[in-house]
């Protein structure tokens, strides 16, 4: 076991990890932040997406020790300081962009990363960017709408075209 420390959602976090401990295991089991999920073991489903130093990464495909000293943001750190939902989160609720909720944390983290890079993505750009986040419930319709809406676009009109 090695001591590892990082900043998680703006707060210093410290714990123990083996070499083989994944960041997602560290977050879930050592820090008790169970919002980040694991949906596969081949780095494809994206339920585990978090931000490390501002970039979306799959927390199941990075070791905890690789995140030593990093700024990590998880779904638990996404809401506004007063606890209210941010624009992206609110858009997911408004447009019914989630059903069972299991892929949702990763989906929200990827959507937030997309909007950071591209504040007004087209439908095609959204679908392309979310290639690494699998949702089995929504058929993606309302997820894409939510991201369009979160970027200030008329999601209903675009979806109906």
């Amino acid at each position, binding site marked *: 076991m090695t001591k590892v420390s990082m900043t998680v959602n703006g707060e210093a976090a410290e714990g123990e990890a083996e070499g*083989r401990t994944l960041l997602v295991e560290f977050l*879930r*089991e050592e820090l008790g*932040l*169970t*919002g*980040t*999920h*694991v*949906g*596969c*073991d*081949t780095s*494809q*489903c994206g*339920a585990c997406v978090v931000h490390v130093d501002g970039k979306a990464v799959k927390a199941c495909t990075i070791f905890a020790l690789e995140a030593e000293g990093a700024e990590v943001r*998880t*779904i*638990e750190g*996404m*809401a506004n300081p007063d606890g209210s*939902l941010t624009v992206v*989160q609110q858009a*997911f*609720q*408004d447009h*019914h962009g*989630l*059903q*069972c*909720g*299991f*892929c*949702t*944390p990763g989906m*929200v983290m990827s959507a937030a990363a997309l909007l950071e890079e591209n504040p007004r993505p087209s*439908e*095609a750009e*959204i*679908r*392309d960017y*979310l*290639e690494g*986040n*699998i*949702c*089995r*419930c*929504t*058929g*993606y*319709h*309302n*997820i*894409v709408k939510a991201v369009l809406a979160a970027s200030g676009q008329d999601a209903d009109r*675009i*979806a*109906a075209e």
Partner: protein
Amino acid sequence: MPKDHGIGAASKRREDVRFLTGTGNYTDDINLPRQLYVHFLRSDIAHGEIRHIDTSDAEGMPGVKRVFTGKDFEGVGGLPCGWQVTDKHGQPMQEPAHPVIAQGKVRHVGEILAAVVADSRERARDAAEAIEFDIAELPAVVDMKAALADDAPKVHDDLDGNLCYDWGFVEENRAKVDAAIREAAHVTTLELVNNRLVANPMEPRVAVGDYSRADDQSTLYTTSQNPHVIRLLMGAFVLGIPEHKLRVVAPDVGGGFGSKIFHYAEEAFCTFAARQLGRPVKWTSTRSEAFMSDAHGRDHVTKIELALDAENNFTAIRTETHANMGAYLSTFAPSVPTWLHGTLMAGNYRTPNIYVNVKAVFTNTVPVDAYRGAGRPEATFQLERVIDKAARELGVDPIALRRQNFVTEFPYATPVAVEYDTGDYNATMDKLEEIADIEGFEARRRESEAKGKLRGLGVNAYIEACGIAPSNLVGQLGARAGLYDAATVRVNATGSISVMVGAHSHGQGHETSFPQVISEMLGIGEDQVEIVHGDTSKIPFGMGTYGSRSLAVCGSAMVRATEKVVAKAKKIAAHLLEAAEADIELRDGKFTVAGTDKEVAWGDVTLAAYVPHNYPLEDIEPGLEETAFYDPANFTYPAGAYACEVEVDPETGKVTIERFAAADDFGNVINPMIVDGQVHGGIAQGIGQALLENCAYDETGQLVSASYMDYAMPRADDVPFYAVDHSCQTPCTHNPLGVKGCGEAGAIGSPPTIVNAVIDALHSGGHKVGHIDMPLTPARVWAAMQD
């Protein structure tokens, strides 16, 4: 103006807040003090005789508490099958034992050989590698028809061959059907495969067993769509624990699509091992394990014949299906190709003569059971494909051919034992033609052709049967359980309400939609109502959520319980208002006396029920809580019409879905936003089945598509926006809400639509292709174009 609350309002989902902030509580989020972890050593060969297992090295490994093998379960019951099908000769199906851990033989890749319990997941897995075993490999049977050959290897030595049952439905129809086909003006024949799928809810299965010696209580936390069913099956048939000593909790469940209905070995193991070891035992499935241990879906091979008279009226349908059961009978497996499939073979059409034959077959593969739609997609697929082929052969418009044969008068008794209570199939087809802009298709086809692409239009209709019932009927059909549901409406002193329901949402939004119903009935705010589900210790009973049954069955129970609450509350209000009970009306959260301005608020009545100072104690008890069990009189019959436009790249065979439209009749709709979402998700799963997903085995029984590297899940860029509509509403005639169910429709209606569209596209390019088996991968479509 759309409503902003109650029935018909697009109320935003309250459960979303926790899911969007990472504060949901899924089973894997549960960790108990002193918890141990189990790793299952699974067979990597499909069929073999276990000669020897030596766990001694493994037991000495660091952190290992105990290693279990089949021997430890010799005195323990096997996993039960919940449905017994009777074959066409009146004999019961062959039903093999289904051990928790393999005994004597392994029968599919992924079957549990041994279980290592240790203080960490990785240590348990380390130790599993130290287990020595000797398995003599036997030839595997994978192909169903080969499995029925006289000299085929037997999956179960103690059974008579690999045939589970040979079912004929309706056997009395057979001669008439044969005659009608002989005499037909035209017969269209189609042989097709309904591809094996893996349900793949994004949350893999998890089980945590716990045991308290102090009060001899076992608790299982599990990813289940129906915790009471698990308690019943596991308690009564596997472990012998009475209900009052066994609690089953399914907290937030991350999707199921059928795969989390069934009682699995891992659940029984964790409960059993926790008792043995006196410590909690946890198992979290990896996705790789899920592929070889979650029940699979579909896997039918069918020959269908459709007979028509000279005026193109359907006169008979005859089908012969081989249905793969896998190596064991999963919980409801036998019912899927029979009662959930044969009964739907009439589709939306007046076909006087129908005969369905199903041979269920054991093979050395993972057990197959219900997956979104369960039997109904298989029925719809073959019927809507053969109708499309018939239209092409006869040179008639596929929509017109369907309309000509639609059932138009209700109730309609089909020749396959069910009675459609209501519907309007022309109305949904009209709506479809409008929202799909069928008229504009030819122009769009020309645009595609200008880009070098082939464009096709596929259309179909579907009907399904939801809320399978009534119990006395399903009992006659072989169900070993009732199919009612239950709800308790507990009104608190201040007027807020907790509703304990037997349905269990795993994405359907019950926490939002169920309160809409109560809000409408009582005239109180939706936020005054809370739904409690997923815990056998809190809920009277319940059969869970599957088969699009939750609102139609459990929602009806909730309505009945609420009606009882209202009846009692009116008595209290009458007392408080010093009026006759018959004159009391409940409106907008107030009780009034008809024709007067006297009123008492809901909250004052509920308070009186719990602080009965001024209360008719001589007539009624204090308190305000009612329970109802509801057993439906019939299935419900959602129906609709779907259209799809595809482009095919003639050089690569790649299919892209350009447009998709769905017009559904779900009867009354409680929350249209949620209903839309259910249809979207079902369509995407149908697209997955039609174009992408294929659970494939090689001839030795190895699972070839064992991860997302080879099993293609629909992703955001595989699908378009969908046009969905459910404004055609013929309310169900026999449940109090007039609802039919919407969860499976999308997955039932979409696969034939897509295949019809691809075939149409290929014909437009001069490729006279009769059929391509799903999934229509680029390689398959390209190969079809080469013939």
